[in-house]
């Protein structure tokens, strides 16, 4: 049986860990609230963008545009959004697992644009080529940063250096459920159903200057909005994941503490009983 002092020390250390996890949970709860609000405010822009682009493409299905067909290059760009900090449960490893598990993404053909140092480190270790590390963006995502990164990726696409663009991030479904998602950005692919639906709406849209130039302008904006939406959702997911992880860490610590308290009390009782027996035995020996 462990000594009373050992048990006490162990309990103390768990207690201080619990204080830390508790504090971290509170911090990420507050951050989650903020990030969630932002994610919700970004939604209308993104939804509208999606609608507009689908309806444009539905009506102009035969347009021959570089953004709509596969590039010649076999290289694929993957933008991987993870976090810069750990202690967020499976948040980072889920995204990385998704990228590793995707058969279409062979390490030899992939250029990684990493947002978040955790993802960058993990993929680097496994032999992926890191084209760019933009980890600072995730600290405070603003639209301009997303737009700048998007411009660089699109440049590589239009210059023929890469043939496809993917985006790996964590979709924020609600506070408790975050889904790692891999999305193909370019060439643009849409849900057949959505296309049919928007083709049925009977508005005959006109474009100014003309369809192709409008597409030229709108598709980069569409991709940027996806980028930005993914960033905002990833931040919300990160904080949600951390909150959950810290919550369960706190309750695990609670459990361990109550277990140790029980052990400690038993040890205390045991030692008192032992002392008493010794005294009584000693006294009876004298008399």
């Amino acid at each position, binding site marked *: 049986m462990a000594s009373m002092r050992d048990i006490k020390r162990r309990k103390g250390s768990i207690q201080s860990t619990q204080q830390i996890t508790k504090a971290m949970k509170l911090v990420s709860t507050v951050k989650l609230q903020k990030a969630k609000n932002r994610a919700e*405010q970004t939604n209308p822009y993104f939804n*509208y963008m999606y609608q507009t682009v689908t309806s*444009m493409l539905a009506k102009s299905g035969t347009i021959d545009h570089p953004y709509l067909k596969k590039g010649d290059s076999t290289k694929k760009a993957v933008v991987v959004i993870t976090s810069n900090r750990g202690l967020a449960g499976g948040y980072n490893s889920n995204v990385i697992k998704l990228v590793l598990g995707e058969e279409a993404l062979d390490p030899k053909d992939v250029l990684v644009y990493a947002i978040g140092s955790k993802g960058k480190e993990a993929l680097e270790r496994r032999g992926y080529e890191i084209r760019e590390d933009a980890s600072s963006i995730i600290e405070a995502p603003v*639209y301009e940063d997303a737009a700048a990164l998007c411009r660089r990726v699109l440049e590589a696409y239009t210059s023929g250096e890469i043939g496809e663009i993917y985006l790996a991030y964590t979709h924020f479904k609600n506070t408790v459920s975050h889904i790692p998602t891999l999305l193909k950005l370019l060439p643009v692919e849409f849900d057949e159903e959505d296309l049919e639906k928007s083709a049925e709406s009977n508005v005959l849209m006109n*474009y*100014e*200057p003309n369809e192709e130039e409008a597409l030229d*302008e709108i598709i980069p904006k569409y991709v940027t909005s996806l980028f930005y939406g993914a960033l905002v959702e990833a931040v919300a997911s990160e904080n949600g994941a951390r909150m959950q992880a810290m919550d369960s860490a706190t309750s695990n610590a609670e459990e361990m503490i109550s277990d140790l308290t029980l052990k400690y009390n038993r040890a205390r009782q045991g030692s008192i009983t032992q002392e008493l027996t010794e005294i009584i035995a000693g006294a009876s020996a004298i008399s």
Partner: protein
Amino acid sequence: MAEDSKVFQVEIITPDRVFHTGEATMIEFNTAAGELGVYKRHIPLTTVLAPGIVRIHNDGEEDVVAAVHSGFAEILPEKVTLLAEIAEWPDEIDKSRAEQAKRRAEERLASKAESIDIKRAEFALRKALVRLDIAK
């Protein structure tokens, strides 16, 4: 149709927020192909925005004015939606910053150096001018 109202819906949406929703009888804004004024029952049109001032007129109310830079507009007979990457109310604009940006852009354009991206400098200059114009 005579009694039909002339009012239609206007929405300005930016990535960070729903910037403005309201009604209007007429809306003016700047597009890549020139300035455009839209009344109700305009033909459906999607057009690319250029930096400029959006002016929303509504009978009996004061005009709503905002600066909008880059994005596009979807015009439907009953509704106009501006999807703007950046939109600002006049009182949100920092005049001294816009002044600086204007000077910077002008210098860059004047220097005619090979390294500068003329399109971007022009765009920055136009943005600065619009901001100064509306903040007056």
